[in-house]
């Protein structure tokens, strides 16, 4: 596709050879560079033909004239008049030989000069009945000993009509009309007239040869302004403008003009002049880089608007004008709005463009759908914002600032949290786009109101953050959105309702912004998006992130408003102490004996791979084969795999038998990793083929998975070159790899870095290949930073260690990282890559290092219980060695088999209801007024398990279900086994009496370490529950006033039950950060 030209420079720079420390691990074969893509075709879209477009037509109309004759006998010219006569006689004699129709009487001499060498030069203009024939000139040079005549001559028939049908004035009026739309003529002051010696357009008749035919024209000189000079030629018979051109010599660069947008408003437009053509490239922002730009087809750091020409994106054209003013309303709207969106992010958050680093913002107008019909939509595709021209429901969508802001924010999301575009994370993605679109177009809370056709919705808008119902009453109504979790859409359409359920967080933002002001709210949400949200954040995580951001920026009172806003839409605080998700369980310790497999570098020893027994320190060489990369060991320590220096894959038994088997004799491999259960191999080749190959021993087949950099839009064009280090997770379904990426940055030089991704290659449920979907360990890395050689800990699937390199500071570190809490620790600072490996208890980390003799060693460091920080000093394990792998030779389960529901409640009810779990039966008694058809359950289940109802995954506090009849919850463990629970909900026959709530005082809220509880009646008992229904504390004060110590609780929201003799009173409170 032609728009790929934007990456032409990127692709062409593949051979630049920029290196990082991770590159030194292997040498890859370069692929041939991609051919340079054709440049965008230019069209001015106007009816004018420029001189540049039609020179060939002129050339053919005139006959060439070239005669040289000996002039030894010619008498010298004594004066210019004499020279003219000589020249004229010469032409009379010789001209006929060129063309029998040549008539020297049709020549008018307009110049006769003598140069310093005494040579006369006489210039003649051809005329026809006194009218100049444009371009027909003959020059005669009276050289020493030679007469030379050359030029052009036109044959004009005798009956050619030289009587004009239109007047001089009419011709000048036509010329002005032709230039008016682009130039908008400005009257000259008297001083300007005197300076330019210009009173107004000047017109004269000429004969213009077009396609070998003479045409009688007015040749008009006209100035639209003090700078520009134009020639316009008007047919003297018809009054039609034949051609025009600007013959002012310009300096290329930014220009400012105006244009009328789709709403009829005149906007200031920034364009870029190249030659005599203005392009919709705004180069006025500080992010613009002329040196990095290839103009006009690849501007760097610009705001750029192009035209898809009513294609679906198969071709693009520049939007151009002969003047700085543009007359295309769609282009004007798109271009202007992109500038407004840029300025909003820059001025409000100091964010430099969509990607934060001054990347070009591209808007494409006139995009059609794939059937060629005009599109009733706009979208962001990861590279540009595309605007359709509307059809049944919308007017041209470029006319709306909130559309531009919405789509541009998708780009910002992609470059920050990179929220996955489905289900709740996708709804948050959509919500963020709506929020910031609304903040740019901030006079109302509606979206799309400027472009919606009348009569489509009662509100006139596509969406309404103030009232997401938007005039509808249920999910079956078009343009209706839920505004509370009880209205949540559970279906699969719209990627799990990303445009539907976004109404809920939208409304939360509206409530929050109304309470604290838009200026504070947008700052809080920007921080939320760029600092705290992750790609799979759910609504409950959004709540947490917003509250934290509000606390960071403005303190607890604003944070409390955020909490109330989320409470109001039914998004409650997740259970404190548990990280995002419930995946905190550890695998059992491998019961086997400890070993270290390492690569011996001692030159006095022939063996390479060597096994050392940890307890005794005894070591035994296993092979003498040279290998390319660190070996990969199965979890039970039975064997390992590696790629030999011959690029073949080998397997080595680790039972001491030294049995080495050739596994793949194709000499193409660079690295291999075996899954911990031994069921699969992951391998990469020595080519830059951007793939990971996986062999499944059960299916006995290879599967190729392509690497890509996941973006908001799902797939991006690339930037990934190849993978290197490979590591399987414990389940044998995902591969963690590091990969080299290359980006062309705005400074013009290649930017190379390594990062870590996790690819999903196998599906346990179907026992077959998965999609190859990739998540990055980090959505973005700081400049000059690369990471790689990532490994999982042996027991905790959420703990990894990797090499961290800062090229600017030459810092090499081995870093531990907790995927659940997003916290990290530096374990070791070295001088080269570490290639870490966890011990079987995760209490020691092995890594490459150098000793005081500058020799490579395998070193170890003791780890803290968090497994990401070091507690003691590192020590050498093996000298003259590298690539230590710690393993044990016992067997343990690698998949979690727990499949219990551990708590169950309906916390959204008033009062909240705890359910009773007895075996696989869960019962709950709810207030008599409860609508059983729409209940949201709060529950916890075993780590790594998935809870489903009829195959649909359930999320605590999210899914709405009908409990009028018993509901079966199926808990599926990671190992694929499952257990069913039956949930029965009955209504209480007695209406719930909330005893004397008005006499209860609970303060402060939010609370710090102490919660004061007072009641008119003695408080008999206090229970504190998490938001998922887990009982965390209970006390029996038996007094009217009690100070409850809640210091041990994690920050978050809780529900307390306060018991008096009258009954039980529920009370929500927030424990704040301290």
């Amino acid at each position, binding site marked *: 596709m032609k728009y790929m030209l934007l990456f032409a420079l990127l692709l062409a720079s593949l051979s630049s050879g920029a290196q990082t420390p991770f590159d030194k691990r292997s040498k890859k074969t370069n692929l041939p560079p991609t051919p340079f893509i054709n440049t965008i075709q230019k069209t001015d879209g106007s009816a004018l033909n420029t001189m540049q477009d039609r020179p060939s037509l002129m050339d053919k109309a005139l006959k060439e004239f070239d005669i040289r004759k000996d002039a030894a006998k010619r008498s010298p010219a004594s004066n210019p008049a004499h020279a003219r006569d000589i020249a004229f006689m010469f032409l009379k004699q010789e001209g006929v030989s060129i063309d029998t129709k040549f008539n020297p009487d049709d020549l008018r001499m307009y110049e006769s000069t003598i140069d310093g060498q005494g040579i006369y030069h006489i210039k003649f203009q051809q005329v026809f009945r006194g009218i100049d024939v444009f371009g027909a000139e003959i020059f005669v040079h009276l050289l020493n000993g030679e007469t030379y005549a050359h030029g052009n001559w036109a044959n004009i028939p005798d009956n050619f009509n030289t009587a004009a049908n239109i007047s001089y004035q009419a011709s000048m009026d036509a010329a002005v009309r032709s230039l008016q739309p682009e130039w908008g003529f400005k009257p000259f002051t008297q001083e300007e007239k005197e300076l330019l010696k210009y009173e107004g357009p000047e017109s004269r008749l000429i004969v213009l040869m077009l396609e070998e035919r003479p045409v009688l024209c007015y040749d008009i000189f006209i100035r639209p302004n003090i700078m520009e000079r134009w020639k316009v030629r008007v047919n003297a018979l018809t009054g039609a403008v034949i051609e025009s051109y600007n013959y002012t010599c310009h300096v290329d660069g930014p220009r400012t003009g105006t244009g009328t947008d789709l709403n009829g408003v005149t906007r200031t437009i920034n364009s870029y002049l190249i030659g005599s053509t203005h392009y919709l490239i705004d180069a006025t922002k500080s992010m613009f880089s002329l040196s990095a730009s290839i103009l006009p087809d690849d501007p760097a750091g610009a705001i750029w608007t192009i035209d898809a020409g009513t294609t679906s994106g198969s071709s693009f054209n520049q939007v151009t004008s002969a003047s700085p003013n543009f007359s295309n309303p769609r282009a004007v709207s798109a271009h202007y709005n992109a500038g407004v969106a840029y300025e909003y992010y820059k001025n409000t958050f100091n964010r430099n463009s969509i990607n934060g680093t001054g990347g070009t913002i591209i808007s494409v107008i006139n995009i059609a*759908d*794939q059937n060629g019909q005009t599109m009733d939509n*706009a*979208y962001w595709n990861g590279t540009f914002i595309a605007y359709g021209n509307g059809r049944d*429901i919308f007017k041209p969508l470029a006319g709306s600032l909130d559309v531009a802001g*919405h789509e541009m924010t998708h780009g910002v999301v992609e470059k920050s949290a990179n929220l996955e575009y489905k289900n709740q994370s996708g709804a948050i993605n959509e919500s963020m786009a709506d929020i910031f679109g609304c903040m740019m177009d901030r006079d109302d809370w509606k979206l799309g109101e400027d472009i919606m056709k009348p009569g489509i919705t009662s509100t006139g808008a596509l969406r309404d953050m103030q009232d997401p119902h938007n005039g509808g009453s249920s999910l079956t109504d078009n343009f209706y959105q839920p505004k509370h979790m009880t209205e949540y859409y559970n279906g699969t*359409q*719209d990627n799990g309702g990303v445009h539907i359920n976004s109404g809920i967080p939208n409304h939360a933002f509206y409530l929050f912004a109304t309470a604290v002001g838009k200026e504070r709210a947008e700052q809080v949400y920007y921080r939320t998006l760029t600092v705290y949200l992750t790609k799979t954040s759910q609504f409950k995580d959004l709540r947490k992130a917003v509250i934290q951001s509000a606390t960071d920026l403005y303190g607890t009172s604003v944070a409390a408003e955020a909490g109330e806003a989320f409470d109001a839409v039914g998004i409650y605080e997740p259970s404190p102490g548990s990280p995002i998700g419930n995946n905190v369980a550890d695998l059992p310790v491998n019961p086997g004996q400890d070993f270290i497999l390492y690569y011996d570098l001692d030159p006095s020893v022939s063996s390479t791979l060597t096994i050392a027994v940890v307890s005794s320190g005894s070591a035994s060489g296993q092979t003498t084969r040279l290998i390319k990369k660190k070996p990969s060991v199965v979890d039970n320590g039975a064997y390992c795999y590696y790629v030999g220096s011959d690029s073949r894959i080998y397997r080595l038994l680790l039972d001491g038998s030294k049995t080495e088997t050739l596994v793949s004799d194709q000499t193409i491999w660079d690295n291999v990793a075996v899954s911990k259960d031994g069921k699969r191999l992951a391998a990469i080749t020595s080519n830059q083929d951007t793939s990971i190959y996986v062999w499944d021993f059960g299916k006995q087949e290879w599967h190729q998975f392509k690497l890509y950099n996941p973006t908001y*839009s799902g*797939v991006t064009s690339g930037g990934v070159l190849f993978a290197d280090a490979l590591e399987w997770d414990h389940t044998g379904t995902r591969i963690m790899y590091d990969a080299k990426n290359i980006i062309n940055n705005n400074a013009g030089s290649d930017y190379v870095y390594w990062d870590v991704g996790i690819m999903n290659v196998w599906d346990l449920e179907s026992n077959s290949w998965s999609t190859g979907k990739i998540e990055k360990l980090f959505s973005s890395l700081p400049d000059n930073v690369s990471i790689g050689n990532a490994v999982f800990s042996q027991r905790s699937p959420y703990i990894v260690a990797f090499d961290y390199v800062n090229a600017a500071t030459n810092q090499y570190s081995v870093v531990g990282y907790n995927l659940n809490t997003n916290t990290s620790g530096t374990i070791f600072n070295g001088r080269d890559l570490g290639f870490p490996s966890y011990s079987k208890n995760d209490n020691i980390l092995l890594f490459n290092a150098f000793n005081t003799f500058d020799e490579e060693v395998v070193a170890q460091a003791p780890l803290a219980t968090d497994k990401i920080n070091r507690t003691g000093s590192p020590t050498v394990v093996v000298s003259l060695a590298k690539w230590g792998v710690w393993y044990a030779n016992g067997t343990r389960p690698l998949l979690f088999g727990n499949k219990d529901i551990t708590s169950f409640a309906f916390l959204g009810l008033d009062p909240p209801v705890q359910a009773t779990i007895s075996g696989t039966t869960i019962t709950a008694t709810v207030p008599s007024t409860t609508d059983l058809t729409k209940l949201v359950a709060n529950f916890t289940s075993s780590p790594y398990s998935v809870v489903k109802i009829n195959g649909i995954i359930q999320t605590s506090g999210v899914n709405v279900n009908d409990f009028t009849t018993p509901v079966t919850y199926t808990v599926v463990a990671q190992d694929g086994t499952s257990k069913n629970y039956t949930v029965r909900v009955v209504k209480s026959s007695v209406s719930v009496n909330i005893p004397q709530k008005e006499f209860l005082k609970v303060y402060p809220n939010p609370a710090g370490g102490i919660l004061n509880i007072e009641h008119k009646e003695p408080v008999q008992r206090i229970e504190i529950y998490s938001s998922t229904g887990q009982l965390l504390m209970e006390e029996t004060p038996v007094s009217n006033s009690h100070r409850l110590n809640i210091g041990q609780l994690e920050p978050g929201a809780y529900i307390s039950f306060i018991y008096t003799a009258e009954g039980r009173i529920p009370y929500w409170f927030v424990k704040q950060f301290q």
Partner: protein
Amino acid sequence: MKTLVLLGLTVVFSMNSCRHIAFRKYVKDMYISYGRGGGFTGATETHIIRGSGSLYHIKAFSTDTVFVKTANKKTLKEIFLYADSKKLKKIDWNKPGNMTGFIHFYRDERIVKSWQWSEGSDIPVELRELYNRLNKLN
């Protein structure tokens, strides 16, 4: 001789009609829905082609399923056989984006295979081929 020829022809024609009946039975409970949607509005245009050859269209923001036409039998057969082929079944692709293209292949009202991709992204050639063939029906 004539009898033999007639018998032979009868056998040939019978075999052909068996194959025709076999295909009709094969696609009887199949249908494919396909289209694209998302973007700013969330609008989705969907077409459904049934095994019977009936093509339907569901416009964005509408629940009405509108009959469009009856597809050519030869084209229909090619499409269903291709969609149900091994090489398509081997492709797993669930990567929606802001604008998502999709194909859902149903049998007996249950999804047999489902593909989603982000507009403008590179998808397997076979999937692109199926999508192009389906869109040509519109």
